[in-house]
Structures are given as structure tokens and as C-alpha cells.
């Protein structure tokens, strides 16, 4: 039998890697999550799917499944081996709260979230911010600068998004490795500050 794996062996992790962590890349449709992940990932980004019923209904068996609304949610993700010991996974996550079980699963154990926003459609980011806050995930906001997107002063963007004073707000170009890496650095720096400040 032909195996799906025959063509290309997957890129395995180095034997020394023992610790895996995840950061969620959150934002509305077409804000650039997939591009961002593709720019930073050391592997060709993969897509994984989860089937779920809406409105949080639990399906533990198949009884009556035809009566339930089931949606397939696709998540793109990428991988960065950061040190001999640590691998970081980035998960592109749809900013919709109705996929609550998906969110519970992804948010559990996540270091934090980077919320990508587009200044031409700032209002579309509210849902993403709501769900990240509801999950209690610490986050930073990165404006993905599109050609032709209006450029607003930082305080106006902060005000429009109602950001807390300590929440980092940075600008990046999801196609550019350096600025995308810097956005992640701002997030992790913020996480470290939060953790150090805790009594």
C-alpha cells in the first residue's frame, strides 16, 4: 500500500528537544495569520482541522449527530525550534468565540496570544480581542501593515482597541521575517514582565 508519507519524510524535531510551547496568532479572516506563520515557520506550515458542534454542545457519541450543526475549523500552524531544548509552535486561530471548545483546547497551556489587526478594519478585531481576554490569555497587538492601509498614530489605535496601558502595540509586515520576529519578541517580553511582577 502506498503510504501518504512515502513522498517526503516529515521534518522531525532534534532529539534534544524536550519542551514544547505554543503561542496563538489570532485575528479575523484575511488579516494575515497564515502569511505571518509562513514567514516565521521552519517547516512548511501545516493545516489541521477540528470538527465541532457550534454553541458548545458536547458530542460524546454519534447519537443524533445529524441534528447538530457541525463545522470544520481549520488552523494553520508553524514551528520554530528555538534552542536545543525548546520548540515553539504558532497556531493561527480564528477570532470567533462560537468555537469555544477549540479555544479551550488551544488556550490551555499557551504562553500567550499575538493579535494581528488591520488598521483599515480595526472594528473587525474586537471579536478576537474579546475571546482572548475571556480566555485569560495575556497578549500583545501587532498591526499588520498592508500596502494602502491607513497609518494611524499609536494612541489612536490604542484608543480604538481600548488597550490597557501595559499592552504592547507594535507594527509588523507579516511577509517580513525580522519585523514579524520582533512582534513575537514584544509579546514574550511582555509575558516575562507580567510573570516577574506577580507576587
Amino acid at each position, binding site marked *: *500500500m502506498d*503510504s*501518504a*508519507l512515502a513522498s517526503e*519524510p*516529515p521534518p*522531525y*524535531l532534534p*532529539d534534544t*528537544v*524536550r*519542551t*514544547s*510551547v*505554543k503561542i496563538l496568532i489570532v485575528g479575523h479572516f484575511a488579516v494575515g495569520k497564515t502569511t505571518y506563520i509562513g514567514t516565521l515557520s521552519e*517547516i512548511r506550515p*501545516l*493545516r*489541521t*482541522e*477540528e*470538527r465541532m458542534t457550534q454553541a458548545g454542545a458536547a*458530542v*460524546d*457519541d*454519534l447519537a443524533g*449527530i*445529524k441534528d447538530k450543526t*457541525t463545522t*470544520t475549523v481549520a*488552523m494553520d*500552524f508553524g*514551528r*520554530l525550534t*528555538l*534552542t536545543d*531544548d*525548546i*520548540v*515553539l*509552535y504558532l*497556531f493561527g486561530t480564528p477570532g470567533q468565540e462560537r468555537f469555544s471548545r477549540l479555544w479551550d*483546547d*488551544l488556550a*490551555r*497551556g*499557551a*504562553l500567550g496570544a499575538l493579535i494581528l489587526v488591520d488598521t483599515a478594519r480595526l472594528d473587525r478585531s474586537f471579536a478576537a480581542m474579546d475571546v482572548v481576554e475571556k480566555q485569560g490569555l495575556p497578549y500583545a497587538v501587532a498591526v499588520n501593515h498592508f500596502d494602502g492601509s491607513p497609518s494611524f498614530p499609536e494612541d489612536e489605535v490604542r484608543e480604538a482597541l481600548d488597550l490597557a496601558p501595559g499592552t504592547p502595540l507594535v507594527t509588523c509586515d507579516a511577509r517580513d521575517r*525580522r519585523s514579524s*520576529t*520582533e512582534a*513575537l*519578541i514584544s509579546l*514574550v*517580553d511582555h*509575558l*516575562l514582565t507580567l*510573570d*516577574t511582577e506577580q507576587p
Partner: protein
Amino acid sequence: MTPRRNERALVRPHVVTGGRARPSRNVFDVVTLVLATGDLPRTGLTPEKVQIVELCLGGALSVAEISGHLGLPVGITRVLLSDLVDSGHLTTRAGAPAAPAPKVRLLQEVLDGLRARL
């Protein structure tokens, strides 16, 4: 009327897991690292399980990567992985929830690792 397109796709993965939607153990985060032990014969395993074991013989991969490479939904993948750990075909390395460790040190190492990529 057009038949509902995803009906077939809805059923099949559950057939793969023998009708179960929940794994026998709850240790599989999407970033849990899994690898094959390589000690056990694969006879008697379903084709999907054989694929997973073969995939994991080469080295460690995350649950999400296994799901993505095999085109199986994450939930289904978790059920199959759980079975394969129970049967001794696979083993795990610590994933995020199992490693509360010193968080500040972990974050500092992540930060240093990211900075080194600039």
C-alpha cells in the same frame, strides 16, 4: 436538492476510532511531542494507526503535526494516539500543560531564542 456534502466526512473519522470521540487518557495537547517506541509489531492495528506509528518512527513530532501530516482531525488523532500509547507503540515527551516548570526561566529562554533569530 443537493445532498449535504460533508455527511460522509462526518462519519468516517468516528469509524476510524471505533465510535469514540474522547481519548482514553487526557494528556494530549496539540503541542505534546510523540514518538514511536519501535519495539512492538504493528500487526492487528488499523491502517490509520499503522500510519501514525510509521510516521512517528523517524523521531518526535507534535500532535498537531501528526494530525496535519495524516489529514486527520485533531480530536480523532488524539483518540488514536491515546490508544497507541496504551498499547505501548508510542510514547510522549512533555508538552505544554505537563511542564509548568519555572515559567520565568522558560519565558527567558524563549525570548533569548527569538532574539537569536534576528
